[in-house]
């Protein structure tokens, strides 16, 4: 798995090619969402919901070879695309890397501009949850 900074810079580069065009940006985000595997219905429980969005986001984390594997889904196509970006950046990293690195790409790709302040708070809630999951899993790797 690539370096957490490299992946973020890659995303920033991809979005810069969209030139700030809203329709192209949403199209791209939806395409990314389509590539994210659908979560099994049995995992889309209230327990796995991340609070703070107008749409529903489900998130699960597990350890595989000391790396955190995230699984996520949403009931809206655009949110699912946005969530897939976080999975791309954070999944496959060690808990330490997740905890010790900033997730700076949302601001750089102008997330505020196209999802609005209230929902980017939802995005922040998602990042926070992913870091908390990493923290919980880090105790298992050290054990």
């Amino acid at each position, binding site marked *: 798995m690539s370096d957490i900074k490299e992946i973020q810079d890659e995303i920033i580069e991809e979005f810069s090619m969209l030139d700030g*065009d*809203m329709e192209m940006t949403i199209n791209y985000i939806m395409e990314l969402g389509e590539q994210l595997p659908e979560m099994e219905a049995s995992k889309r429980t209230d327990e796995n919901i991340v609070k703070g969005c107008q749409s529903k986001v489900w998130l699960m984390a597990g350890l595989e070879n000391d790396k955190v594997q995230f699984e996520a889904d949403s009931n809206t196509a655009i949110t699912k695309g946005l969530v897939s970006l976080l999975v791309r950046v954070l999944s496959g990293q060690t808990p330490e890397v997740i905890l010790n690195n900033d997730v700076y790409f949302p601001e750089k790709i102008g997330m505020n501009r196209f999802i609005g302040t209230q929902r980017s708070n939802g995005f922040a809630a998602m990042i926070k949850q992913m870091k908390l999951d990493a923290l919980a899993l880090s105790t298992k790797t050290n054990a």
Partner: protein
Amino acid sequence: MSITTTLSIDEIRAQFPVLDQQVNGKPLIYFDNAATSQKPKQVIDALSHYYNRDNSNIHRGIHTLAERATSAYEETRKAAQAFINAPEAEEIVFTKGTTEGINLVAQAYGRKFLKAGDEIIITSMEHHSNIVPWQILCQQTGAELKVIPINNRGEIIYEEYLKLLSDKTKIVSAVYISNALGTINPIKEIIADAHKAGAITLVDAAQAAPHEKVDVKDLNCDFLALSAHKMYGPTGVGILYGKRLLLEKMDAYQGGGEMISEVTFAKTTFNDIPYKFEAGTPNIGDVVAFKAAMDFMSQIGHQFLHDHEQRLLDEGTKLLSEIDGFEPIGTAESKASVISFNVENIHPFDLGMWLDAKGIAVRTGHHCTQPLMDIFQIEGTVRASFAVYNTVDEVAYFAQALKEIVSKFRK
């Protein structure tokens, strides 16, 4: 007296500076009028004139500016009286908006006169602002909240309302026009039947006032609340109309300046209505500018507003119905210019985001009517709501845009 406008829609639009802009590289189409309407230049000018020339605290001031500000403030009260055909100007209480008006009645009337075992009736399509104040009152007094059910078109089931009425019913508080469905309720009948049962009535006219001629004498309601910002006026201003006898019987709502007659440390006597309910320095500038909004509506005329908006509603309903998977929510026979809908297998959030990308402002979500969404077993809707400055062309562009968006999801 109704004045029929001779203005074209283009001339009306020209009075709204905010409409003349691009959003995401597309001309702005503003279809979120049920949330708040845009403001014509005369309202913006009135607000600006007040702060540029007349600003002063009102009442009790003896200097010229205080006199001008007081007079402008009271002119709005008289204009509001005429606008809703209230018998007396003293029956007009300025509030922050409809929500505050309802809370005022719940607390200043309800808390004084309701007791355990009494009942309050509302409809299934109330905004949270006409649910929560009564729930609070019920907790305080032991009264009980009863809800009139609706059919699948989003109309109240009138026989069920009649069954709920009894000598226990003390207050019937109903929405005139539903913000989430557009349903126009038979409010005059609702009031008349409430009175037969001996209950007093409150009308939530937040969505009705921008579209219909609201006449409190004709409705014979006891209270009526509305918000200026949905009627082309400023935010933070509303009106509570109440019949004099009821307002006089009520307790004060909040304590402070303006609402008193005399204060000693031992005892306070309260001012007369409406000042008894207007504690503290009010939102003077916005109240003053609200008159310009009512003038704007009167100049256009209610008939014109109604006819134009109905045309947009009819056209919109027709064009949207052709879209694959279109599911209208709220199909009442008597309906205001609101189209609330879902599209099969597409989340309202996705539709709202896509429409915004195309310059079209709509609202998505539960519209502060969660119990109503539960009845329809949906999370929310997309809501397009029209105002006098919207055009048939905009409606057609919107329908076309939606069709294109839906096709992206139907690959």
